[in-house]
Each structure stands twice: as C-alpha cells, then as structure tokens.
C-alpha cells in the first residue's frame, strides 16, 4: 500500500493513483522510418529492473495529472517524484 507524493496534491494513498509503467519511453520521431524490430521496442519492450525504476503514475482520482516517480522495485521506497518534462533524478546536477 504505497503512499505517493503527488507533485501537486501532496501525499495521497495508492488507491487514488493509476500506474503508467516505465517513464521516458520516447515515441519514435518518425515511426515510419524505424524497422519493425525498433517499433516493437517502442511498443512492447520495457526495462524491468530489480532496483530503482523510473515510472509514470497518474493521480487519476485526484488532480488527474501525470508525473514521474523513482521507486525501488524491491523495497518500494520512493526516492523521487518529478513532473513531466523535468529531468530524472540521476540527470539532475
């Protein structure tokens, strides 16, 4: 039962959120220029690390905003929360 710090609403219960999978999966600039294999990478292939993971959540029952979370997939500890467009924690200076 996670408690997630919505960047707008603050700490709220997991029940109010929906999960959006891996963050920063870029839509190919020109989908028609990529191979079927690379398109499959975009469509289906995902990182699935045991450890820190950058992932998306949406505060679906609250402010309905999407945002990114850095969370440990074993301890479930949340180490960062940031808005779309902001750089992931590791990329921060």
């Amino acid at each position, binding site marked *: 039962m996670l*408690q997630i710090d919505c960047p707008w609403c603050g700490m709220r219960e997991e029940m109010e959120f929906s999960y959006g999978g891996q963050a920063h999966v870029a839509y190919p600039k020109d989908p028609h220029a990529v191979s079927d294999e690379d*398109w499959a990478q975009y469509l289906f292939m995902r990182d699935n690390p045991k450890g820190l993971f950058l992932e998306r959540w949406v505060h679906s029952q609250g402010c309905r905003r999407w945002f990114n979370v850095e969370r440990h997939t074993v301890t479930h500890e949340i180490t960062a929360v940031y808005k779309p467009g902001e750089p992931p924690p590791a990329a921060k200076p």
Partner: protein
Amino acid sequence: MSGTAANIARIEGAGKIDRTRPLAFTFNGRKLQGYAGDTLASALLANGIHLVARSFKYHRPRGMLTAGNEEPNALVQLERGPYTEPNLRATEIELYEGLDASSVNCFPNVQFDLRAINGLASSILVAGFYNKTFMWPKGFWKKVYEPALRAAAGLGVAPDSPDPDTYDRMHWHCDVLVVGAGPAGLSASLQAGRRGVRTVIVEEAPEAGGSLLQRPATIDGVAGTEWASKAFAELDAMPNVLFLCRTSVFGYYDHNYLMAVEHRTDHLGPGRSPGVARKRLWHFRAKRVVLATGAHERPIVFGNNDLPGIVLANAACTYATRYGVSLGKCGVAFVNNDHGFALALETQAVARNIAMIIDPRPDPDDALVKRAAALGVRVLCNSVIATAHGWNRVSSVDICPTRGTGLARLECDHVLVSGGLNPAVHLYSQAPGKLRYDANLACFLPDQCIQTVEVAGALNARFSLDSALEDGALAGKRTLHTLGQAVDAGAPAEAKDELHILPVWSVQAQLGLKLPGKHFVDYQNDVTEADILLASREGFRSVEHTKRYTTTGMATDQGKTSNVIGLAILAASLGKPIPEVGTTTFRPPFTPVTFGAIAGRDRGSLSDPVRTTPMHAWHVDNGAVFEDVGQWKRPWYFPKPGEDLHAAVARETKALRTTAGVMDATTLGKIDIQGADAAEFLNRVYTNAWTKLAVGSCRYGVMCRPDGMVMDDGVTARLADDRFLMTTTTGNAARVLDWLEEWLQTEWPELEVYCTTVTEQWATTAVVGPNARKILKALAPDMDFSNAAFPFMTFREGVVAGLAARVFRISFNGELSYEINVPSWHGLALWRAVIEAGKPHGLTPYGTETMHVARAEKGYIIIGQETDGTVTPQDVGLEWAVSKQKDFIGKRSFSRSDTARAGRKQLVGLLPQDKAFVAPEGSHLVASPERSTFDPRLGSPSIGHITSSYYSPNLESAFALALIANGRAMHGKTVYCSQGSGLKPMTVTDPVFIDKEGKRRDGID
C-alpha cells in the same frame, strides 16, 4: 447448578473476573457457568474441563496450551445457525451469557473420537505420506482415496446461510501508532500522548496492561494492573489519542500502512447489538510506528508433550492470576530459563499447586531458587521431563537427569512448560524487517527495517518489567525526536536482559536417546520431531522445504509456538547453526481475519456502484429489463405483457424501421475537447482526418492503440473551430478520457488542448425511424428538420419541447435519426415529452438489444463485440476511415508482416440457409462439412466465429456478423456454423443487410 460448585477449579479470592456476574454457557451441549471477565478457556478450566479438542491428523486429545492468540489446540465452533463461526480459539473468546460452543473435528465427540484410530496408523501417516501412495489403481484416486482424504480434512464448518452481521471500515492517519498496550507500549504511548502528537494505541486484548494482567507486578508503588488502568485512563482522555482495545493489528504494509481488525461486539454475544457493525477494519497510515507486541513463550518437545494438562508456564500463571483458575492439584514445571522459572513461582504463589520445578540447567538464579524454597516448591536441576503419560489428561511424567540415565516417574495432574521466549516479531518482519538470532537469549530479534519503526519491550528482548518500561519510554522519545519534537532521545540502552536460558528444543535430541511417545513440534498439524527429521533425511533441508513437506507452522496458529523449535531441530539435524537455517516468512494476517470484515461495507447494493441515467425511473415504471454494461444499468428491452426477449425485440426492431423508436443513449461517453490544437489532436488520435470538418458537422472516428488494434469509436462533432464534442462507447468512456489525457500530458504537452468529460452533463434521447422527423417537428416547431437545412451528420442547437437542446442528426441504425441532448436535469422531462409527441407516430421505446439488431442489419460494429483487441480497422471494413496521408496512433503497426498479411480474419455478414436459425453468438464456422471436427494432424477446423447474431423481422430471417479468415474474398460462399447439434449452412455476404445505398437515413422530408 450453583456457581461455586461448578467452578471446581476456581481459586478463592484470586483473579480479575467479576464474581458478581455469573454467566451461563454451553460447551459440547453441557450447560456450564463462568464469570464476566473469563475467556471460554478459563471458564472451561474453572469447570475442570481440560480436554477440549482433537488434533488435525491423529485426533489426539488436546487441551489449552496457552492463554492467548498463539493457541494451537483449543479450537471451537462458536454458536450455531447463521452465527456459527469455525475454528475460534477458546483462549481468545470472551465469555458472554448464553455462549454456545463445541469442539471441532471430532466424531462422535471430543471425549471419544473414532478417528483417533488414525493414531494407530501414525507410523504410516508420516509427513508427506500421501505423495507416496494412493496412486494405484489409477481410477481410485478420484473416486476413493481423494474423497476419503478430503472428508477427513478440515476443522470447523462454514455456516450454510448468509451472514446476519455487518462490518465496517475506517481510514485513520496519525503521527505515531503504537501496537501493544503492555508496559512497553503504554510507556511509549504516554511519551507520545503527552506531547500532543496524534497517537493511536492498538491493543488486541479487551483492556490495557499486556503481561501486567497475567502476573503480579508493582509499578510506581501500585499494582501493575492499576498502573495500566491509570495509564489507559490518562491516554484515553487525551483528544489527540485514540486508544483501541479488542483490536488486532494484523498486517504491516508499505510506507507504514498497517491494517487492524477491531472486534466490536463479539464479547456481547450474537445478535445483541442491532445495527452495530460486528467488526471494523482499520486502515492506519502512520508517520511513525512503535511495535511493542511482547513475546510468546514456547514449549519444549518431549514425549506426549501434547496431553491435556500440559500448558505453558505463562498460561498457567495467567489462568491463576487473571482468572483465578487452578489447573489442578499437583503440578510440575519444566523450565529452562529464569523467566519460566519465575512464572512457575508466581503461579504457585496464587494457586498453591506446584510441587516441583524441573530444570535442565545446573544453576538457576539463586534468588529464584530461594523463593522456590520459601514457596514450598522443590527444584530439580540438571533434569528434564522425558515423557508424559495419561489418557485424555496428563497423569504422570518421567523425569530424567540431563546426564546419565534412569527415569523417575512422577504423578501429577498438570505440567507447566517454558522453553524460552519468542519475541513477537511478526509485524516487524512483515514490514519487512530483518531478524537476527541471539544465541544467548535463544531467540530471533528485530534487527533492521526499511521502514521508520521502533521496537520496544519484550519484542526488543527487554524481558524484565523495569527494562520494558524504560525501553518503551525510550522508543517513544526516539520516535518524537524523529518527528522533529524537541525531545532528548537519549542513547539506546545497551544491556539486554538476561534470560539465563539453556536451550532445550527437544529432550530426545538433548539426551541423545530415543524416548517413547510422540514428540510434537506443531500441535495443530500433528507434526512431530520425527517428521522433521524425516524431511531432512529426504532432502527437504531448506527450512521452507521442511515447512512445506511437514506442514509445520501452516496451521491456523501459523506456528507461533512451533516454528522456532522446528527450525532448531532441523538445524541440529543438518549440523548447522540456527541463523544459517533461518526462519520461514512471516505473512499477514498476524491472527486470522474474518472474510466479512475484509469485505467490510462493500456488500449488496454497496458492493459496486450501480449507475443509472436521469430517465431510469421511467424505464423501471415501464417494465424495462436491464442489462449490465460496466456499472451502468441500461434498458435491454421493454417487454409488453407476455413477451419474451425475442418477441419484444422483434416488435421494437420492426417499429424502429417502420414507424419510430426511442432509446436512452445517455450512457455514451462525451468529452468536450477545446483549444486551438483540438483538430490536430483528433488527427493524431483518430485514424481519419479532422482538420476540414465544418463547424456544425459530425464525423465518425475510430481510434487505435499504438499496436494498430481498434480501441474505440464514436461520432465527434465540431462545436466551434477550436472545440469538439467527442462521443465514446459506454464501456470505454473513462478509458478514452484517460487515454487522451495521457497523450496530451506526457507526449504532446505542446498541443493547446483541454479535455473535460461531460458525459453526465447531458441526457441523450435518440429518436429513430421514418417518423422521427414528424416527432421532432412536433417537439420543436421552431427548428427546421428538412434534409437541406439539417442534413445528415450535422447538429443544431434549438428549443425542443421547450427546453434548450442540442440535436445531432447521426444514426447508428441507418434510419433517419436524431439524438437530442439536454442538460441531464431535463432528461426525464424531455423523454416524457418525446414519448407523448411520439404517440401518434407509433413511437416505441427500445433497449440495447434492439439497438444491436438494428446496427447489425447495417453492418455497424460494436467495440468489444466485433473487436476484441486483435482486430484492425481494416479487418472490420473501416479502411475508408483510415487516412493514408497523416500519421496517427497505431498507423505504423499496420505495415508489420502479420498485420499487413492477406487472409486475416475479416468482418462479413452471414445469412443462414435455414432462416429461423439464430446462431448463438460466439459460435465458430468451418469451411466444409468434411472438415468440421478436430483433427490432431490439422488442428482446429475453425475459420472464424460469429460476433453478432439475431433474428431480423425486417429481413424476415436470422442473420449474423462474423470474423472469418479472408472473409472479404468469400462473399457468396457457404460456410457452416459448427454448433451443438450439428452444422448449419450459412451464406457469406456483405455485412450490410439493409439499405446498402443509405437512403433510409434521410427519411422523407
């Protein structure tokens, strides 16, 4: 029956029971009496009843081993009829007037159980025996062995009728959550409470005090129990403190989320608190947690250590001091540590029935030995109990020196055992926290945890009262400190209490002798030391394997008294140190939780919202039969008296094509899309183009997932240059909105677009059929409904039936059709007006079934019926709606080899050659009668399946839509519906059955 006469085992003047309030109760049909403050267990013991249960496998006689939640033996079926509840622990049931309990899993009764015969076969029924047999002859497993095994299994019985009780739920946030109101928990709570932080204290027992209730103590010059009640009173008076008794924390989840169940009325008896929820499930979100859950005493394994009358020392002390119950006239204690030794003496001080303490240690604490002498208790050091004897109750024990041999038999009627302490690490471990084995104390202790939690008291190996109190206060201070309060947390106290324990897990192993009798580790599951050794011999050497092979710790007590002993025996057999073997995983719940309590108030009409439209009341009044579409109730059809589904639908469908029909279309999703980039946005999410759509016009759109499969469809209208109203299918309304937001917010933040759901702002009434225009004219005399002024696929705003409305000329059935939208508060009034206005024109209300028939006659798909997540727009004949020019979500996927493949399943129409044959939806089709069944070499003969199938009164024939391989190339061919009784020939057709030219939708001007 007089109270005192029955309570033969009551100790005069002892205990905290209320002797002025006798309570009558029934056990196994016998009428008995106890007192307010008793548990069922203490009342039974007071009546001299020790034999209360039978074990799971061997049906051995069993009595109370403990006085608390760790009880493995004393399981009862409480109450009868709808209130009955299986497998409750007698040690946890508070006595109430009229209580009615009986033993579980014995036949014909607990005194004489025929299944005890299993005990004779016990040499065969060892751990895992069933894996090795019952395999021959093959058919016997299903018919003979398995039913017999199953019949023997199980403990109590489930009720056979629904539960008359209700349950409740509560969410609660706090700064500090303290679990356990023993001395440690109370002193931590006082720290927190007095500081004013939001504090919750949760205690499983009916009152505060923990071990203070179980043994005599003095704190600050007053009796321990008095200190506890004062502490409770002080805390309970604080507005920042919530003190919950009879509440068990059963799960420790992520981010300091703890679950507890409060037993609110069980102690009052069934049916006595009308309207009050029997149990309440608490959801706690705590900034900080203090666990002060105490410790469980554990037994020692010796021969026949399961006989009734053999109890833990702590239990004996509790029965004496708290309940004033003596366990017999002549007791012996078998202890290997100072704590148990002291408990035996405390019992003696009250009950005066302990003759001897048997201790394997050479050197029990001097002071204790002196006290024993003073209390008239003999102490026998360097000795153990080897085997107990008795029939349904212990009657003697064999005593044996730890070195050397020679058994001495000692008569006794009860035995106190203490093999050491297991701190109650369950919740800590769930957190999840790591444990560490302390060899001096011979127990596992909390070590490190990823959550912000403090441990205190016996859980933290502070076994003496003074240090538990101090430790609790320190834990409280540390917690406050981390909450930012100006509190000196102090240095953590270094010294732990000494237990002076000589670990003896199993007497046999200790002595290196084979002793008679059965040597139980897990009482409830009848797991013996021999079973564990067998498991180890057969290669089940991981503690997890041993657990699963022998079932140690898997019974309803989850091994609270047995797990550590089991793993110690395993470790010894492997020659490994205990920490290397480790524990099994502690899992929620800490103690079992009633399903009903977990379901809480989500029952019946509250189990899931039932969503209805503003017109619902009219539908109900007019006899609609409803269909569930997601959470919505939609009218399925409106039968007239005597009509079934088919008759009603035939009538409705006919009306819709010959006169007029009216349908409640409110549930369709509606999304208001605004912003300068709205058209561009639609271009990206829909497969077709939107830029050129004129204001005032509508267009059908399909949206795909990125993998190219159809996701949803609907008609979208352009309200203004920068504003569209999108409709979605009923079932996908929420999903589509989320989908749009996801793309907007995460992928295309540069687009100036806002989406707002308006599904429930508008009530939608669809008026359909040749007479629709007449009806609309009657309703809206000021509006021009001519084809020229109000063409197909446009909308107009105007006044309809005196109400401001938006009217869309769109059609999901090929007929002239208007969808009138009014603010939902006018929905019912408009509907009524439409019905009135329609009367002269044969207007017939219809439901979703008729809608389905009518749209299928036109070959229109329904998302989720013609599509199933594996279907592209091209597959269902929507290539006309797929833009070749622009890009959109999913387009790239169309060119993948399988998606672009010829011969994919495609949407077709089907006409049965027998016009009356309505193929069941979901039926499959085969290409020829010769190949119509499964052939192991060729596989399935199916070429596709029927997605929709109805009888059409308009076609005077049944007809269907289907997805079949290469379907578009098969028009005119015969295929066979493979269904139940045989093969039915059907002709493949175009999916449009009616009005291919599309003339009807314009009606007659």
